């Protein structure tokens, strides 16, 4: 009998970081080799299962940054360090990090969209010589929703950062949506670069349009999709758009592909 692709395994939670009132980061012990941008099917038996992207990884652990939005995530928020969480994966493709190396990189992320880009941001933070420059625009709804505060502080020292809140004015943050700050990126000064956009669907759509307006060509733009999935391996059908399965060909897509994915 071949391997059961639907079979989850228990993993120990080794640490929990409270990012905001309703967003926690769970560090889970696993030796799984994860690429930047991949996701796991995370579950609690008898409650449910959902796809969660990896927000950071080390030799023996991965971090999952989870917003409390439903039945499963409510239950996950009751778990304590030492408890077991069930996972299978990692699934999906990844950001083309090797292609990013030696070039300029622009990362535009909104809200929990910061989670899937955090692992490679941390990688380039640790290895700043592997990238020509990194511009990072991060947007949050308000002060209460700011994620990864420690990382954001560190990133300021090595990246060109623009942090912004939708409406509120606080120290160190601009005001307005991420799209309003894209024109500040000196795209014309870069000889070669990539742009990564991750966030809510509408935000990605308008941020990509704004980039195109600022002269960015389509093939330089990368996004990551979030979809309902029951399997993560091309069987359940939920994430299909046209002939494309987000779990198999995504969640990371180049804009040249995404613009043809019509829901």
């Amino acid at each position: 009998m071949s391997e059961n692709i639907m079979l989850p395994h228990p993993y120990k939670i080794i640490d929990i970081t409270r990012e905001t009132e309703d967003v926690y980061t769970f560090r889970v012990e696993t030796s799984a080799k994860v690429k930047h941008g991949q996701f796991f099917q995370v579950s609690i038996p008898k409650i449910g299962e959902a796809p969660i992207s990896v927000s950071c990884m080390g030799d023996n652990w991965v971090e999952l940054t989870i917003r409390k939005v439903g039945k499963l995530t409510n239950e996950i928020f009751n778990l304590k360090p030492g408890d077991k969480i069930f996972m299978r994966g990692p699934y999906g493709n990844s950001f083309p990090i090797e292609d990013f190396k030696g070039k300029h990189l622009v990362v535009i992320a909104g809200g929990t969209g910061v989670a899937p880009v955090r692992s490679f941001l941390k990688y380039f933070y640790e290895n700043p010589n592997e990238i020509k420059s990194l511009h990072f625009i991060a947007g949050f709804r308000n002060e209460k929703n700011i994620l990864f505060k420690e990382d954001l502080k560190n990133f300021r020292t090595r990246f060109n950062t623009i942090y912004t809140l939708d409406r509120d004015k606080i120290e160190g943050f601009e005001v307005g949506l991420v799209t309003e700050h894209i024109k500040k990126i000196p795209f014309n000064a870069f000889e070669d670069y990539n742009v990564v956009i991750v966030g809510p669907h509408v935000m990605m759509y308008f941020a990509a349009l704004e980039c195109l307006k600022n002269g960015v060509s389509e093939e330089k733009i990368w996004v990551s999709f979030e979809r309902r999935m029951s399997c993560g391996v091309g069987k359940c059908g939920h994430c299909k758009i046209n002939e494309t399965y987000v779990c198999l060909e995504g969640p990371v897509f180049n804009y040249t592909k995404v613009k043809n994915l019509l829901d």
Partner: protein
Amino acid sequence: MSVEGRESMSYCVSVKRMNEILKELQKDYKIYAPVRFEKRGRYSDTDLIRYAEINSIEDVVYDEKSHFSPKEVIYPITQALFYFTEDEYRESNVDDKKIMIFARSCDINGFRRLDTIFLKNGGAEDIYYKRLREKVKFVLMECKESWDSCFCVSMGSNKTDDYSLAVRFDGDNILVEVKDDEFVNLFANEREVEFTPEFVTSNPTKVNIPEIDSQELLEKIYNLEMWESYNSRCISCGACSAVCITCSCFNTLDIIYSENGRVGERRRVQTSCMHEDFTTMAGGLSFRKTAGERMRFRTLHKIYDYKLRFKEEHMCVGCGRCEERCPKLISFSSTINRLYDEVEKLKKGEVSRTREQAASTEEGK
């Protein structure tokens, strides 16, 4: 498969003898066929015909189309994946017996589509499907004639050679073609005859499949006004998917049996892209919010993008069950033909009303 060096052998078998042979087969096989459930139909005083285990050949309803497809024999509507107790869990089991399915050509061709999704897509095999699928042998039921809603010929699924036995119900006798060595001995004492099954070569219903050859055309198709007409008609019940031999989508659902919450299971349940919440994520975000958009999604999957992905064939086999089951009388063959006409207009550059145009007319009123 070959029988004594020949492609096949055929026999004329009496009902009585056939039942004796079935009894013999039942030692190793669970045998499924379309069966009549009296007064269980959708309307009062009508019968339901769906797949179930049979005990005699008389149980087989061969002269009517089954309301449900045979897919649920190996892909049940709801199916346990794991059982959980305390901190332990185990995989669900299946019966050791092999499976024999009396099926028509369209459905046997339909199983190949299910195989593509469950055994090939993404490169991984789904063991819950595989463990039942590999037990299956088909008994082809010859279609004497096409029913009104069938369009198997248009979809190229009217013929198959993927069967172990083929049967024609002929009064008091059953003509049986034996293609599979395993079953030769069972028929050794029967009267040999010349028989190979005939296939339907023409249906009253025909469809023209639009050829969609560019992204530009696809985008225009997305914006056709025709999809809007389903907003008021389709009630998003998903009955079309429930009866479809090729619809394979599922949800996983965890349940707790007991009040103390210690025992439960993870199961999967068939679902439909026609349901409103098919794409809804925790937090409420969803895509394809209208019935029309979902109708467009389903139609294009069945006659366009499945083939674009897997190359060989369209997903739809033209069994016509979806339109017979639809409580709002939406005809899938008409939908395909309507789309074909619209696409022809688009290709000729004739003006087809788009959603935008419809919206602006609406505003102008």
